[in-house]
């Protein structure tokens, strides 16, 4: 016999009330955990994907759409830009490096990105099998794209028009897989790389040659900090190009999503507080139900501190169990959500990771439990024994 043993016996004696309190707390903790894990992973992932890209140049339209489509490969591009304008920008004295992207097709939901070898180099991608492309119509698959499609070096496939499933296939212009990249933990894992010329070749099939060449976007790295102040303005002043900052647009996106995230987070905290209130009510009721037990315990020699400890331990045990259950539930939900997102080639998130803030959730739950138990525990310790035993 000890305080935890006695407390657990009381909790076991009321299985329904105990289970409901556990569930309430677990749901609150799970909600906050999912939000914590999701925002942490998405922020980290977007940060990695946009690292080293100071500016994106593309067709005029929404700057956020441009960043989402060209950097994160999440949205459809607004249109293409003339190759001549892109080349002129790439040669600008304030541009250190410019990586062209030609989008338009996909294979089983994975985007086919026409680019040059600077693109995999930018993300530090290493070849896991085969080699990079050297001629048009050769393709190199990102690790996740290779895993999901099952394509290996030497295989042939036809790209489909459009960036989603169900587009018309370019069967007459098949790609040949010449290489597969090792996983990088960046957006490049989820795309199919080829040369820009491949994309032109596929889309010019059956058309008269010599038409104006286009690319979709240019990923730009500034040559000097001065460029940040002048280059976007210069680009936007022109008739065909638009400049967008990945850092600014990502922050803007998180600010917009942030409202929803905060509402859900607040909902989670409300659930945790409701659980605390429920524990408080349960313990206050228990004081009345257990007045004889508490009196008998005092009669048997229990100190006031021990009685106080009994209720505190009970609340803390409930809170700790609810918090651990909530954390586990949050990770399982995150993994289920991650599997669903991976199935549609969206931002990959997983439940098998740990956010530092989760430790604080445990502290929060224990704090709420202790707070909820404080008043009932104090009242239990002050209860008079003789009148209760006398009323028998």
């Amino acid at each position, binding site marked *: 016999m000890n305080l935890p043993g006695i407390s657990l016996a009381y909790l076991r004696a009321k299985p329904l009330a105990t289970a409901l309190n556990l569930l309430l707390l677990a749901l609150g903790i799970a909600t906050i955990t999912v939000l914590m894990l999701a925002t942490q992973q998405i922020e980290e992932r977007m940060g990695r994907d946009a690292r080293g890209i100071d500016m994106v140049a593309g067709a005029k339209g929404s700057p956020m759409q441009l960043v989402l489509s060209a950097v994160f490969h999440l949205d459809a591009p607004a249109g293409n830009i003339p190759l001549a304008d892109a080349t002129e920008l790439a040669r600008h004295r304030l541009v250190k490096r410019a990586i062209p992207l030609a989008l338009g097709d996909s294979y089983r939901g994975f985007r086919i990105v026409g680019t040059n070898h600077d693109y995999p180099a930018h993300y530090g991608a290493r070849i896991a099998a085969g080699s990079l492309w050297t001629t048009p119509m050769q393709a190199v698959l990102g690790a996740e794209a290779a895993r999901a499609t099952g394509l290996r070096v030497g295989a042939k496939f036809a790209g489909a028009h459009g960036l989603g499933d169900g587009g018309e296939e370019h069967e007459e212009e098949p790609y040949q897989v010449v290489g597969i990249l090792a996983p990088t933990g960046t957006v490049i894992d989820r795309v199919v790389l080829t040369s820009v010329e491949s994309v032109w070749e596929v889309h010019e099939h059956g058309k008269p040659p010599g038409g104006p060449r286009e690319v979709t976007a240019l990923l730009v790295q500034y040559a000097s900090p001065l460029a940040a102040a002048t280059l976007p303005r210069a680009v936007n002043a022109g008739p065909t190009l638009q400049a967008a900052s990945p850092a600014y647009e990502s922050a803007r996106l998180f600010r917009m999503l942030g409202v929803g995230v905060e509402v859900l987070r607040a909902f989670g905290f409300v659930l945790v507080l409701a659980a605390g209130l429920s524990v408080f009510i349960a313990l206050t009721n228990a004081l009345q139900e257990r007045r004889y037990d508490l*009196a008998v315990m005092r009669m048997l020699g229990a100190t006031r501190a021990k009685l106080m400890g009994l209720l505190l331990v009970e609340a803390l045990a409930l809170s700790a169990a609810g918090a651990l259950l909530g954390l586990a539930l949050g990770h399982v939900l995150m993994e289920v959500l991650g599997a669903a997102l991976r199935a549609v080639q969206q931002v990959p998130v997983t439940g098998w990771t740990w956010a530092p803030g989760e430790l604080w959730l445990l502290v929060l739950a224990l704090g709420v439990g202790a707070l909820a138990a404080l008043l009932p525990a104090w009242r239990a310790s002050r209860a008079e024994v003789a009148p209760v035993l006398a009323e028998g």
Partner: protein
Amino acid sequence: MFSLKGVRHRYGAREVLSLERFEAAQGDKWLVLGPSGSGKSTLLHILAGLLHPTSGTVEVARPIGIVPQKLHLIASLSVEQNLLLAQYLAGAKQEPARAAQVLAGVGMADRAGDRPHQLSHGQAQRVAVARAVMNRPKLLIADEPTSNLDDAHCAAALDLLEAQAAECGATLIVATHDARAKPRFAHRLELGA
């Protein structure tokens, strides 16, 4: 094993207990008789240290074992756990072997794992007595142990208390309004209404 001198207790203006002198030696068996409201429970609570008298001095040898009128076994604990709880709460070392021995002494050896709700009143009373003697008390107090019992069970309950008090060498005090207990006790304290 205890000595009360000039003990008085009041609830507000009403005096419920007044004893000039009440003393007992080790192994004595005392019967405290009196109708409801005569101060029996107040006296027992003062002896048990659960109540401080309004005035007077109280000296009692410890530990003390108490069998309350309603028994009050902890429903969420097993019979054995109820016994070990008495040792834990008193700050004594927990002895499962002692619990088994005491339960055997009250004829409840085979019910150690049962919950109180699985026991009859008579069995629960035996467990309550076993709990009271777990810490080898020097003073064993029983409050109305024979109320609502027929003659046979009344005799059995008193036999049990006497046997367990003797086993521990404890002073026994039984408070009751039941006159059937009178012939068994050489020492009697009668309290008025």
